[in-house]
């Protein structure tokens, strides 16, 4: 809730102090002032005190009238130069604070706002400490201790949501975006609904404001959806990283990994993942491989280790077998390497071709451009005609006598693009094939090294002392043990990683489930009720105020924009079009009031404060204005400030204010700022 208790506007001039102190009531306040009385200064000062001068299209003291910056005029035509000026605004919600902000001051910037935790104007508290705060300073809205707008939002108990800006940022809704929904100022406020929202790049600002004021679920739902999409992206990233890790680990042990999709899927598909490894020319499951290793180890263990001498015959056979195997591998290896070289060459050729095609493509695009430029200067050749005889010529410099039909340039471009695509596909295919073959070559090379090592060991043993235990046998065992340990550890690491990936699928499933819950239409039942209520109130009020441009039956509140529209048979459009100027004003009155009424009904976020600056625009009839004021006087729960000149006519004032239940009537008098009196309070109760 926002209640303005009082305002004090002070200008220290060369001829002394000129000021005005005004107290406001909690409900309807009608402030009357002639057109030249300084009424605008009063409205501007209120906005200034609230840090909302951006609604006047400017910042800081720039938006203030010359009265507070240059010279005070009092009485008529007598000017007094301003040395210093400031605004004091006392406001109330659950507590009272007084705000002081300089307009002109040698030492204090207009960006500085002093906030006193107390009532300096009404109750004249003493000994109150002020806290300095900043406005329009980078970080003013977010700085926890010193940002004024942040303070004001907290003071008014408004939990501003995060919204998207056109540059993609997600940031809190600026408070200044909100105020045009209940403060209609004279210069631009009457041109449209929520017309004076300052530009911050907020996406769909009006929508966001109305959604917030009526605390529509739709907004929350849309935010949730966006957040969910972000979660999804994060999960996909994590998944990709884990998967790559898995592959890297597997690579170390020449393990192939199957069945892990490249993007997250639901749990069941992961049950078919497994690890495999090449063994004796077949791929077998990794666990089985480990089993085989362990079996072999058992066998080895059970065998006694013979001495070298006893083994000679066996070793000689082993050497022969190994050498034959090595030979076979060697030939294979050589063949594969030769093949691989050819594949590299092929790839290189394709890549060169690709470069050529791309160059040609660029030249053709250039040619196209040149032709279009040629056409703009009316070159005959650009139109495919001979410049001298005007006959058609083929669009090519090949001898005209040779029968040929050159492609049109566009066709040529398409042709080249198709070639480009084709070659790219070839190159990709080559890459794939090359990777496979490189793997194969590496594998065989590894095997060859193993064999060479074995052969060396056997040969060494042949010449070793016959009495010592066979080195090769021992080495065989040791190697096998090492392998078993390696693969046991590897399996454990792989399975751990796999578990983590499986955990991600659980999270993924949760997200997918949440996503499915978002129905296409984000409106909740409550939202529908609120919008229906908004429509009802709007139509009632707008008719009561005298709107007659369109039949009431055709008036609706738009579901997309939440603003009044006219709905015909098959068309609907903004109520602005086709309404008379004064009817548009009535619409703005009605809409602003309806927002408050619905928010009150459903306990939403409206601050129960309304300010209308010169609402009787466009030669408004006294009758309509009267109805408007009567309606406003009924709002006991909201503070309403109406500033009007009443056409500078006492008669008009009498007519338009008749029948009002109760209001605080304030007459500004001829000039707003008057020389300082000991007791500067000027307000009178209207009987």
């Amino acid at each position, binding site marked *: 809730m926002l209640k303005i208790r009082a305002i004090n506007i002070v200008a220290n001039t060369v001829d002394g102090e000129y000021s005005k102190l005004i107290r406001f009531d909690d409900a309807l306040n009608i402030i009357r002032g002639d057109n030249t009385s300084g009424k605008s200064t009063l409205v501007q000062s209120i906005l200034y005190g609230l840090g909302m001068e951006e609604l006047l299209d400017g910042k800081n003291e720039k938006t203030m009238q010359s009265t507070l910056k240059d010279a005070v005029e009092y009485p008529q035509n007598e000017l007094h130069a301003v040395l210093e000026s400031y605004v004091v605004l006392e406001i109330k919600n659950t507590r009272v604070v007084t705000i002081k902000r300089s307009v002109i001051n040698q030492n204090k910037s207009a960006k500085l706002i002093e906030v006193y935790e107390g009532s300096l104007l009404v109750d004249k508290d003493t000994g109150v400490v002020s806290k300095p705060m900043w406005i329009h300073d980078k970080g003013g809205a977010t700085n926890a201790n010193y940002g004024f707008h942040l303070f004001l939002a907290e003071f008014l108990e408004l939990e501003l949501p995060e919204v998207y800006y056109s540059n993609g940022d997600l940031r809190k809704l600026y408070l200044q975006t909100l105020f045009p929904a209940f403060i209609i100022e004279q210069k631009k406020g009457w041109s449209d609904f929520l017309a004076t929202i300052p530009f911050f790049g907020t996406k769909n600002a009006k929508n966001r404001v109305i959604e917030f004021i009526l605390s529509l679920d739709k907004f929350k739902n849309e935010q949730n959806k966006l957040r969910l999409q972000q979660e999804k992206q994060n999960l996909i990233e994590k998944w990709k990283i884990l998967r790559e890790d898995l592959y890297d680990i597997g690579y170390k042990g020449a393990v192939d990994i199957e069945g892990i999709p490249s993007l997250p899927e639901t749990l069941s598909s992961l049950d078919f993942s497994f690890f495999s490894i090449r063994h004796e020319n077949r791929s077998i499951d990794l666990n089985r491989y480990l089993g085989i290793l362990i079996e072999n180890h058992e066998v080895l263990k059970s065998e006694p280790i013979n001495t070298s001498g006893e083994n000679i015959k066996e070793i000689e056979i082993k050497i022969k077998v190994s050498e034959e195997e090595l030979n076979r591998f060697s030939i294979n290896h050589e063949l594969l390497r030769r093949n691989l070289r050819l594949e590299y060459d092929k790839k290189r050729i394709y890549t060169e071709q690709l470069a050529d095609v791309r160059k040609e493509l660029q030249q053709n695009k250039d*040619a196209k*451009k040149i*032709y279009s*430029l040629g056409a703009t200067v009316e*070159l005959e050749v650009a139109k495919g005609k001979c410049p001298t005889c005007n006959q058609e010529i083929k669009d090519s*410099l*090949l001898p005209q006598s040779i029968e040929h*039909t*050159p492609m049109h340039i566009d066709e040529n471009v398409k042709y080249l693009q198709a070639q480009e695509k084709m070659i790219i596909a070839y190159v990709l295919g080559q890459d794939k094939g090359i990777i496979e073959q490189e793997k194969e070559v590496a594998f065989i090379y590894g095997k060859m090294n193993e064999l060479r090592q074995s052969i060396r060991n056997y040969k060494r043993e042949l010449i070793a002392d016959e009495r010592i235990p066979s080195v090769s046998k021992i080495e065989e065992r040791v190697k096998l043990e090492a392998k078993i340990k390696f693969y046991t550890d590897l399996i454990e690491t792989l399975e751990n990683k796999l578990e983590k990936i499986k955990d991600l699928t659980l999270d993924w499933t949760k997200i997918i489930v949440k996503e499915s819950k978002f129905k296409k239409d984000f409106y909740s039942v409550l939202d529908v009720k609120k919008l229906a209520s908004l429509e009802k109130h709007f139509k009632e009020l707008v008719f009561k105020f005298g709107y007659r441009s369109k039949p009431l039956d055709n008036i609706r509140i738009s579901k997309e924009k939440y603003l009044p529209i006219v709905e015909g048979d098959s068309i609907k459009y903004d109520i602005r079009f086709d309404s008379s100027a004064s009817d548009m004003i009535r619409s703005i009155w009605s809409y602003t009031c309806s927002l408050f009424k619905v928010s009150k009904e459903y306990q939403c976020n409206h601050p129960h404060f309304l300010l209308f600056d010169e609402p009787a625009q466009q030669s408004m009839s006294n009758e309509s204005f009267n109805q408007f004021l009567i309606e406003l006087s009924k709002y006991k729960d909201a503070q309403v400030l109406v500033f009007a000149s009443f056409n500078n006519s006492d008669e008009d004032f009498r007519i338009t204010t008749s029948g009002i239940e109760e209001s605080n009537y304030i007459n500004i008098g001829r000039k707003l700022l008057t020389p300082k009196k000991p007791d500067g309070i000027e307000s009178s109760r209207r009987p």
Partner: protein
Amino acid sequence: MKITFSRKAIPIPAEYRPLYKIAQILQVLQIASRGQRASLLKLHLFSWAFKSGENMDKLIEIKNNQIIRDIRIWGLEPSLNRALVYAVSEGLCDHVSGSYKLTEKGENFVKLLLEEETLLLEQRSFLMEVGKGITEKLVTNIAKSWKN
């Protein structure tokens, strides 16, 4: 039963498009020729240069060192001649005693082309680097070296 034959259109390299070649020629006249005028031989030399990066590099080397080294005879393409015929009849350049000179119409057109920053980029930067460095004298000397 009626059978119709239609000739299949063939793709041709961009440099065989008349206006493309003309644009090339005009650029040579504008950027790399004194008085916007060049001999037929010089135009053929540049046409040869445009064919490949190596050729362009060779020409730059010659311009830098002003010595003729390792340059084989460059081809004289009929297609260039054809393009020149179009260019002249289009009024983009004049043919005056073996030389070709930019006309005002040609100069306007080439300036239009030059405004498009990304057009014929490789050729343009090459021409900028050569500047007016390949003089008619140099061209004649190179041609003389063929005789030996």
